[in-house]
């Protein structure tokens, strides 16, 4: 067979095949290379002191404890606000909306939100929450900005999961005389928990990695903020990613930046794994 193919065709195939392998190899090399490099430069600096102190000239510590706390605060606050909104929105789209045009408009809006770059979120968040709502540069303003940003993620994953709930569940529930809300609360939402959890994990991933949207809304402070303080008044604070940017770009302290980067990598890895695991596990539980 092969002898019938002309040499030129053979050569062409060979070159193209080679390019394919080259590209795939390049992508793998890129990933392993950059991860390896970050771990190599960063991990030696990750010590207990580094994780548990705040940056201070007096005690000569350069810890990232405040940034870890801030990241947790912002994740928590964003999820508390965005979950009801996003899930509610998805429920409306799949259970309540009757007008197809309205559904289309809402889906278009969600897609638009997903396409807006984070620097614009940062700017608009500053205009709306920091200035217009006069929250000041604070974690609250940052979290609210991220609410807008993560809404499409939650809506999409929840909606996809709601669509897989069998129609017969709904019919069965309604036939037994339950109201629509009762049906949603007891039948529809519990069966779509996988989508909601996956959405949450993806949203956390986006929040952890976000920097441009938080730079002008949540600020750059590195102070430890207690839980009570956090709920009382809007305090400024930088998350891990923002502080990575500040250390690398503004202060040129690359060792700290690499240490934070290696922590972020581990978190990203964990979140990716969890998202896949949750989707699989919960889907199995449903069946």
């Amino acid at each position, binding site marked *: 067979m092969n002898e019938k193919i002309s040499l030129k*065709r053979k050569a062409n*195939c060979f070159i*193209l*095949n080679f*390019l*394919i*392998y080259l*590209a*795939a190899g390049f*992508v*793998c090399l*890129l*990933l392993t290379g*950059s*991860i390896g490099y*970050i771990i190599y430069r960063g991990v030696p600096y990750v010590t207990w002191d580094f994780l548990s102190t705040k940056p201070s000239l007096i005690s000569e510590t350069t810890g990232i404890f405040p940034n870890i706390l801030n990241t947790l605060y912002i994740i928590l606050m964003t999820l508390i606000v965005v979950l*009801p*909104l996003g*899930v*509610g929105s998805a429920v*409306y789209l799949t*259970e*309540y*909306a009757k007008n197809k045009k*309205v559904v289309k408009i*809402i889906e*278009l*809006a*969600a*897609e*638009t939100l997903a*396409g*807006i*770059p*984070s620097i*614009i979120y*940062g*700017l608009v968040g500053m*205009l709306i929450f920091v200035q217009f709502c006069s929250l000041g540069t604070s974690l609250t303003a940052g979290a609210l900005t991220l609410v807008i940003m993560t*809404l499409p993620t939650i*809506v999409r994953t929840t909606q996809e999961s709601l669509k897989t709930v069998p129609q017969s569940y709904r019919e069965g*529930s309604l036939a*037994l005389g339950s109201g629509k*809300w*009762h049906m*949603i609360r*007891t039948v529809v939402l519990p069966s779509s928990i996988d989508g909601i959890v996956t959405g949450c994990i993806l949203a956390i991933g986006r929040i952890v*990695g976000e*920097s*441009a949207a938080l730079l*002008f809304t949540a600020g750059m402070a590195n102070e430890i903020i207690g839980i009570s303080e956090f709920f009382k008044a809007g305090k400024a604070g930088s998350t891990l*990613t923002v502080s*990575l*940017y500040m250390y*690398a*770009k503004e202060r040129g302290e*690359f060792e700290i*930046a690499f240490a934070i980067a290696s922590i972020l990598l581990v978190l990203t*890895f964990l979140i*990716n794994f969890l998202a896949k695991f949750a989707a699989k596990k919960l889907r199995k539980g449903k069946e």
Partner: protein
Amino acid sequence: MKILETAITNKLGKTTKQAKPVNMLEMIMNLIFTVCGLIAVVFVLLITAFLIVSGVPAIKEIGIIDFLTGDIWASTAETPLYGILPFIMTSVYGTLGAILIGVPIGLLCAVFLAEIAHKKIAGIVRSAVDLLAGIPSAVYGLIGMIIIVPAVREIFDLPDGANLFSAIIVLAIMILPSVISVSETAIKAVPKEYKEASLALGATKTETVFKVIVPAAKSGILTAVVLGIGRAIGEAMAVMMVAGNVANMPGLFKSVRFLTTAVASEMSYSSGLQREALFSIALVLFVFIMIINLVLNLIVKRNKR
């Protein structure tokens, strides 16, 4: 089924309750869900309104032609000049460059995943790509700062490696994951018969891939390209760390400023007209993004048909 059973028992337990308050509750919940449903639309309108309200005054004051086509940005000079053509051109060139490098590599990698690789290897590469997608942009910026910028400086013998070229490389790497995953989906969606027919006619596997499958997946790949454009043009932090951040007209080895970084770099210390001009830049960027979104929607719609 278990869920249904609990639902039934719940319901049966409560049948003694009266009907009217339930209706009231239903109405309230209906209202709440409708409000939630419309919130995305409200957010989009809010963002648009705030950007227009804060972006238009400066454009009016500077003059739209001077603003868009002026090639000198000197916001802190004694007689300030606000021309954003350098930013626009940099964003366009930077995005084009990233697409030119990123799309061929991404496409080839997608072909590898969809057609050539063994299932197990494909799975591993795919999770590597997912991981690349999840890495924060500031981390990409850090790698760019430490590895790519010095490398570019050494290889091309420049005084400073922070330039458009470094930014293009970082952007090309950043758009890879979305290009790969979207093109892979498109390639996999090509009917099997196409491939079989081509192979039966005597084409080799590679010829089949490049002359039959890729052309058939053309529109899906186009989606990937437009998505990549959107990501590249909107990226701020990574670019800020590697592009040098000087408001030059773009040149491959010049320090440049993108639309995104123009907004971010002066925001913290700006005031007055300068600050308003920054909002105007954001408005221009927003218009770009909206156009890209529109194109993306049109392509996706056409694909569905």
